[in-house]
């Protein structure tokens, strides 16, 4: 299973578009394991980065050395030895499966349930290259031409550093400075790649931008960095990840997403995260420590985060909104599902600074098996945020008596004109609902998935259509084996 990803990487690396980053195994092998200033210099050199970026990385690294790994989250995992990791992914050359018959059966079953077309299955399993699916001309290339017409920039961040240095220099680290937190600081020092999006003034991005269609998106490695800038009066919807299980052998992921929203602009960011959660006994799985933040700098700007989190052994993720501009608004919709031994500590921060700012938080957590899940959120109203408004709802559903569900919201109000409401509930699937379904001939497992999907509906309806359908199926799969 692990081969799958590597194979995609290798096929990709032969493509034209893939100029930068870790292209071949030989090159990658020259970076020694461990983290020090030399490694960072090497990464920067390999990527052909300008001097200012290297300096910035080194400053981050110096700062990181003085930082302590946070321990406040309700997460338990073995201590990570940061010196034993390789900070420059080395794709290993492995035997590629010849056809779908060679691919792990379990993986194929999952694809089947998700309803992924056969051709796409082959790509995901690494049998064929992405190009083979989407005609002879790469879809990505087609899309890029169309986007370029409108002046939209959508490329890897390494390319952006070269082609649009002013934009990158102006905004990189302006939302999440490297001093922000331990994982963000580490990412700033060693980030390998990620996406860069710039929507010019007055442009409504004609299509949903998705990392899935950006050829090298799969190669961004464990320290991904995304920067999205929506200029005045623009709009973009961005999709990250995909519903198909991604078998990834990187244990540690520390990504950063920065979003800057200017006057009257709107950004919609949707994520489906389905990384390897470890096996039934909690062995293995990805550690996912992500810093995501949007700065609503302009007046009337708007950001909405929607996430469906089903993967990873450990998730530490708080997509946040800094509502600086007057009348700006932030939204957070989240479904998090944990099963077996998964742990998730996730939530959001809404920082109200401007006047008449509004925010809405809807968080749905489902824990099953032996898993533990925490909603952790902050709503902060600063003294100037007159008439700020927040509504928060976090609901948790527990399946089985060995899982845990926790809610830790922080509410800080320094303005009397602000109006804040917070509600949280925790319960199990109601026996009445279950009985009602069973009575009508629906099997227990189906009934549970019906009820769970109903429970998540408030969030799912904020996902783009095609995502929503797959995500609904994904929820069922994630909960498999937890009932009865």
């Amino acid at each position: 299973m692990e081969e799958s990803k590597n194979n995609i990487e290798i096929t990709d690396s032969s493509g034209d578009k893939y100029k930068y980053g870790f292209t071949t195994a030989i090159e990658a092998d020259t970076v020694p394991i461990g983290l020090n200033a030399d490694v960072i210099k090497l990464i920067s050199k390999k990527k052909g980065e300008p001097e200012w970026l290297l300096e910035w990385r080194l400053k981050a690294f110096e700062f990181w050395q003085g930082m302590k790994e946070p321990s406040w989250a309700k997460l338990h995992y073995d201590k990570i030895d940061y010196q034993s990791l390789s900070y420059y992914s080395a794709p290993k050359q492995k035997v590629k499966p010849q056809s779908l018959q060679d691919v792990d059966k379990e993986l194929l079953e999952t694809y089947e349930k998700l309803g992924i077309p056969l051709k796409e299955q082959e790509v995901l399993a690494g049998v064929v290259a992405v190009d083979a699916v989407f005609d002879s001309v790469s879809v990505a290339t087609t899309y890029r031409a169309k986007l370029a017409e409108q002046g939209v920039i959508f490329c890897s961040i390494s390319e952006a550093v070269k082609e649009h240095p002013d934009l990158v220099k102006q905004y990189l680290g302006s939302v999440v400075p490297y001093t922000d937190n331990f994982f963000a600081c580490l990412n700033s020092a060693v980030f390998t790649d990620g996406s860069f999006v710039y929507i010019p003034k007055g442009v409504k991005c004609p299509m949903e931008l998705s990392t899935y269609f950006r050829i090298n998106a799969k190669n961004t490695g464990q320290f991904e960095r995304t920067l999205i800038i929506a200029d005045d009066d623009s709009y973009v919807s961005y999709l990250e990840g995909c519903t198909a299980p991604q078998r990834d052998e990187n244990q540690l992921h520390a990504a950063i997403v920065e979003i800057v929203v200017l006057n009257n602009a709107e950004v919609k960011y949707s994520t489906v995260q389905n990384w390897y959660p470890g096996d039934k006994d909690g062995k293995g799985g990805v550690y996912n420590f992500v810093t995501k933040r949007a700065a609503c700098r302009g007046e009337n700007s708007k950001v909405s985060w929607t996430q469906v989190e089903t993967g990873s052994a450990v998730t530490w993720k708080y997509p946040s909104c800094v509502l600086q501009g007057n009348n700006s608004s932030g939204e957070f919709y989240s479904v998090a599902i944990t099963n077996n031994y998964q742990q998730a500590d996730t939530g959001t921060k809404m920082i109200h600074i401007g006047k008449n700012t509004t925010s809405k938080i809807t968080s749905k957590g489902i824990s099953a098996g032996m898993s533990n899940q925490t909603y952790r959120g902050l709503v902060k109203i600063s003294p100037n945020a007159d008439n700020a408004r927040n509504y928060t709802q976090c609901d948790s559903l527990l399946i089985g008596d060995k899982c845990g569900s926790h809610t830790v919201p922080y509410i800080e109000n320094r303005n009397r004109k602000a109006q804040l409401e917070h509600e949280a509930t925790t319960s199990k699937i109601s026996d009445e609902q279950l009985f009602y379904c069973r009575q009508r001939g629906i099997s227990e497992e189906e009934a549970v998935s019906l009820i769970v999907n109903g429970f998540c509906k408030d969030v799912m309806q904020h996902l783009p259509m095609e995502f929503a359908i797959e995500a609904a199926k994904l929820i069922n799969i994630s909960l498999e084996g937890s009932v009865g």
Partner: protein
Amino acid sequence: MSKLLHDIKLIGDDIPWLKDMRSAGREAFAVSGIPQPKAEAWKYTKPIRFFANDFIPAPRGESHASNNNINFPFDACKIYFENGVFSSCDDDLPQGVEVLPLIEAIMFKPEIRGKIGALADISKHPFAALNQAYLGEGLYIKVAAGTKVAKPLVIINHITAEQELRQYSLRNLVVMDDSSQAEIMEYYCYDGELKSSYFVNMVNEIYINKNAVLHHYKLQSEAYKAAHIALNSVFVAASGEYKSFCLQKGADLSRNETKVVLSAEYAKAEVDAAYVMNGWATIDTTTDIEHLKPLTQSLQLVKGVIGGQAKGVFQGKIHIAPQAIKTEGYQLHKAMLLSDEAEIDVKPELEIFADDVKCSHGAASGELNADQLFYMRSRGIGEEEARQILIDAYLNDVIAKIDNQEIKQFMSMAANPLKERE
């Protein structure tokens, strides 16, 4: 030596176990010290601000005027403390109720050993550790099995001392035997114009045995430069019930922390509170309800009104242990901000390890409803009065839950500066 820890001569140092407990308290506090701003449990309250000065325990035998005739509005069995020292107790104690100064109980009631200090965890609560370092002053209250106490017991802690920077450590040990019922009220007050800065460090350890019911009320009305830090640690056995209401309206730094352990089936807790604050004070209500067994139930309602530059803090936690199914835990906090510089910080927390439970919490904050204010103003009610009526109604939600009519009225008056003037 750490701040607040002082070598003073204490009664009972010749009792080895008491001496050991005091040293354990000393050591624990020497390690933890005053909670630093980064301490999660004290995140918003930041006691360090208040303890820029050191506070010294009153030397033994410091003269204190005895003032045992505080105007107390209803019939109750009264126990007086003057400046942190036991002063007197009404003679007509109801039958089945035993009240002793704590130090006497320590000397003559060997059965309390093992009970005292068992509920207030000194490794987690720095101020309880400090309190234990000076262990000796306070009360031992025991209500015999099956006794239903008709009159409320009122413990009046009255501060009159003009001396600056005094530290008063008090501890009450309450044991409710099987199927007993009682009402206990704590009343913290001071002499009219008192301007001294002092620090009251309270610990209540309360055991509620099978089927027993304790209603616990508290009115904290300390002088405006005082600090009042209290920990109520309650253990509830099967079918026992703990119901409390605390109104905090005084002091510069005030914290009332209630920890309830629902240790067996059908144990129940209702922890309600209100706070009213102006000026610069920080006022903190912290709760921690642990549901250890199935079929336990907890309810919390906290309402606050904050004006001036004051800061209101609410931290509430409901913990449900694995297998504690069929439990119910409800919590609601609502606060009203009256001024531009007032602040509210809230952290309601759920920690749930069992699936068949019903838990919820809610928190809301906002200002006085302008429409309601307008409605009253248009009917000729002055602004000040209209505001007070609305605040009154707001707090009445929680005060109305008090069962004892006289105490309800007393609290309602205390919460309302206008009524108090009448």
